[in-house]
């Protein structure tokens, strides 16, 4: 919104005057003034049905003079006394008006909250001890803050379906549902897949999917995120871990170029769940199920945990320590001319890793450099066609102008014996880049680093256990050109190392420079080598990232949200 200053409206909140842009919802004005108004149905990204009534507040307007009566005298700031309305108003859907008064802490407001809480809990099963939402349940939280501690409800509760399998990833407990309709609105308005609805009416109103149908949309888990109670829970996460035992890390999703902002929940180096984190320039409040659930390989048995060196018999690998593996690698690499060496890095690597990889290329004077492109169908929501999270980084930092363009030349070079040594960082050439085991077998030396065992590793002379996205820190540039931070959530298993460490140590083993102790140091050096990074500090990027370069990519879901916001349907 590009309002001029004159479009600011004065509102009195709990006795203090504030100014907010015209069109601001009362609930948002209160929040900005430091007063959270409890709510269930309201969500800034969805339409506001005003149904939960939890956000009722006492409201007042300038007095309306009776015919013949003089209008009230404004005070020196131009404010007139407020005439308080005896009926409470919902703060979620109403916008502010000039000289409006709002009381979020008055007796009337408190009575409303207490009353609504009692009614919400009347038919609620009160099964918190066995409810997975416990610890992050708004009903629980507001009940403590605004409830009266005991219920006058003595009747039989309304019985509704429990433990309903409504889709492959979501489970429904209708007795816990408070009919806020957030999930229905999400599926209608955001996911364009209106499979959820209410059946029956009155106290018997029941959330459901149509019989024989499923909530199987790839955005279904967002409904569990926005469910304020334990009615919708994730099959993947339920009963795995109480939320208060877990560590929360803000980072980004690396499954595609969108780079959805996420919060990773972990405990003792195990990731239990990933949920979207609000970033209105990237993923709004949402993310695809396929991306958030792609975490179970991280602690799988296929993880590489130690450096491996090919046995003298040439068939099997044996466990080695890092020093030996790096030493052997350096020794082997010294035997080749630069033109005989190829380096295939990954657009899944951070800018910092790509920077140090560039130094390795320089050190080796390697004649061939590329990354492996990953392209899929964009979903028209948040999933980009580019399934690499940092293609822009690979272009900008590593200098790969056309990702994947040299892969065929490298294959040919290997086949023809021109290329004799290959360093493969964070990629699986056999499965993801069309290399054959036979082709790789022609190399004199193959080094690969990767989080998981794979056919490329099988063909390698040196296999180094790499950290995955959740086990490292750094920065990436998403499809729209936004620089974002990847933050380490857990320690990798065994002896895994982050790629920047691996490459640094390899450079060192080759006799090159050193003196780098962290990814942040590398970030600081990015500015010296890549002009776009000049003057940017790590701290400046913050939790939400900053625009770095111009691209022509847009995020369709955000475009549609912007339209709804322009229509005044949502706060945004």
């Amino acid at each position, binding site marked *: 919104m590009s309002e001029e200053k004159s479009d600011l409206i004065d509102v009195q909140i709990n006795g203090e005057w504030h100014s907010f842009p015209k069109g601001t919802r009362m609930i948002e004005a209160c929040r900005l003034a430091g007063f959270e108004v409890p709510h269930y149905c309201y969500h800034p990204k969805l339409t506001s049905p005003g149904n939960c009534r939890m956000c009722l507040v006492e409201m007042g307007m300038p007095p309306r003079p009776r015919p013949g009566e003089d209008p009230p005298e404004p005070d020196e700031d131009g404010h007139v006394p407020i005439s308080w309305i005896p009926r409470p108003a919902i703060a979620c859907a109403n916008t502010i008006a000039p000289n409006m008064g709002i009381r979020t802490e008055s007796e009337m407001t408190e009575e409303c909250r207490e009353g609504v809480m009692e009614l919400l809990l009347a038919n609620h099963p009160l099964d918190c001890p066995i409810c997975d939402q416990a610890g992050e349940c708004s009903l629980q939280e507001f009940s403590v803050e605004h409830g009266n501690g005991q219920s006058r409800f003595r009747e039989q509760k309304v019985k509704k379906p429990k433990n309903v399998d409504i889709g492959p990833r979501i489970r429904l407990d209708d007795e816990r549902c408070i009919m806020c309709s957030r999930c229905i609105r999400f599926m209608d308005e955001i*996911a*364009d*897949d*209106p*499979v*959820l*609805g*209410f*059946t*029956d*009416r009155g106290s*018997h109103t029941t959330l*459901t*999917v*149509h*019989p*024989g*149908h499923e909530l*199987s*949309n*790839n*955005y279904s888990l967002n409904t569990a995120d926005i469910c304020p109670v334990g009615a919708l829970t994730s099959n993947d996460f339920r009963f795995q871990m109480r939320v208060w035992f877990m560590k929360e890390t803000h980072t980004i999703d*690396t*499954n595609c170029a969108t780079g959805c902002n996420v919060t990773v929940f972990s405990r003792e180096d195990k990731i239990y769940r990933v949920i979207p984190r609000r970033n209105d320039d990237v993923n709004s409040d949402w993310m*695809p*199920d*396929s*991306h958030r*659930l*792609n975490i179970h*390989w991280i602690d*799988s*048995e*296929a993880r590489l945990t130690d450096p491996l060196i090919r046995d003298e018999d040439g068939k099997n690998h044996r466990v080695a320590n890092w020093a030996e593996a790096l030493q052997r690698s350096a020794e082997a690499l010294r035997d080749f001319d630069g033109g005989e060496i190829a380096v295939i890095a990954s657009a*899944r690597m951070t800018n910092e890793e790509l920077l140090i990889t560039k130094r390795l290329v320089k050190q080796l004077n390697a004649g061939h450099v590329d990354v492996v492109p*990953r392209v*899929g*169908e964009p*979903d*028209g*929501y948040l*999933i980009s066609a580019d*399934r690499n999270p940092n293609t822009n980084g690979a272009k900008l930092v590593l200098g790969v102008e056309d990702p994947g363009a040299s892969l065929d030349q490298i294959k040919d070079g290997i086949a023809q014996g021109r290329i004799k040594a290959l360093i493969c960082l964070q990629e*699986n050439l056999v*499965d993801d880049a069309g290399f054959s085991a036979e082709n790789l077998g022609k190399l004199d030396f193959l080094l690969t680093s*990767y*989080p*998981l*065992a*794979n*056919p490329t590793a*099988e063909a390698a002379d040196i296999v180094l256990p790499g950290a995955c996205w959740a086990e490292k820190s750094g920065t990436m540039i998403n499809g729209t050109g936004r620089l974002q931070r990847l933050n380490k959530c857990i320690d990798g298993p065994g002896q895994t190392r982050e790629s920047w460490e691996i490459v640094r140590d390899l450079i060192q083993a080759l006799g090159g420079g050193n003196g780098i102790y962290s990814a942040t140091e590398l970030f600081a050096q990015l500015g010296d080598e890549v002009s776009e990074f000049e003057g940017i500090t790590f701290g400046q990027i913050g939790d939400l990232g900053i625009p770095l370069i111009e691209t022509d990519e847009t995020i369709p879901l955000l475009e549609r949200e912007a339209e709804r916001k322009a229509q005044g349907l949502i706060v945004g």
Partner: protein
Amino acid sequence: MRPLTNEPCLFAKPTLLIRKFSFSMSFEVPADVEAKVDERITHYPVSKRSAVLPVIHELQHHFGFISEPAVEWIAEKLELEPIKVLEVVTFYPGIRQSAPGKYHIRVCRTLSCAMAGSYELMESLCETAKIDRSGVNHHNPIAVSPDGKFSIEFAECLASCGTGPVCLVNDDFYEAVEDAGELLGKYK
């Protein structure tokens, strides 16, 4: 060895806006009923969705109730997700979800009729038609006589409070009903 995949492959793409369904062959809407349905839809030039209730009424008039296949048929007809039709079907007591008897009786339960004896009327109607209402609850409001001839339920205020107790038998309206036998006797 298990390959690492970052590719979403387990999940369906969220591209289906309106799904196509195949109905069980037993549900067929006769051409004349469908013609009425199509005519009703023309009353709503702005939004076909508005025709949900009229279409439901046409089908209920023909079939006696709205079955699950009927819901899907309506959804397809009006290009809606079936849940949006089910939401409506389950909201209104005037829409039946189970088969009524040949003659469906609705006795007004609300205050003025109750004061005029509608509960007693309900009892005597049930007795006369041999209807057992013991299984009636919120989810099953309709009780049917063993021979399937009559079914009965309470309805809320039928808006003829001055002439209670009143009831509807199918679309026929009766005021100040005193004799259950006489009323039921009109229906052979």
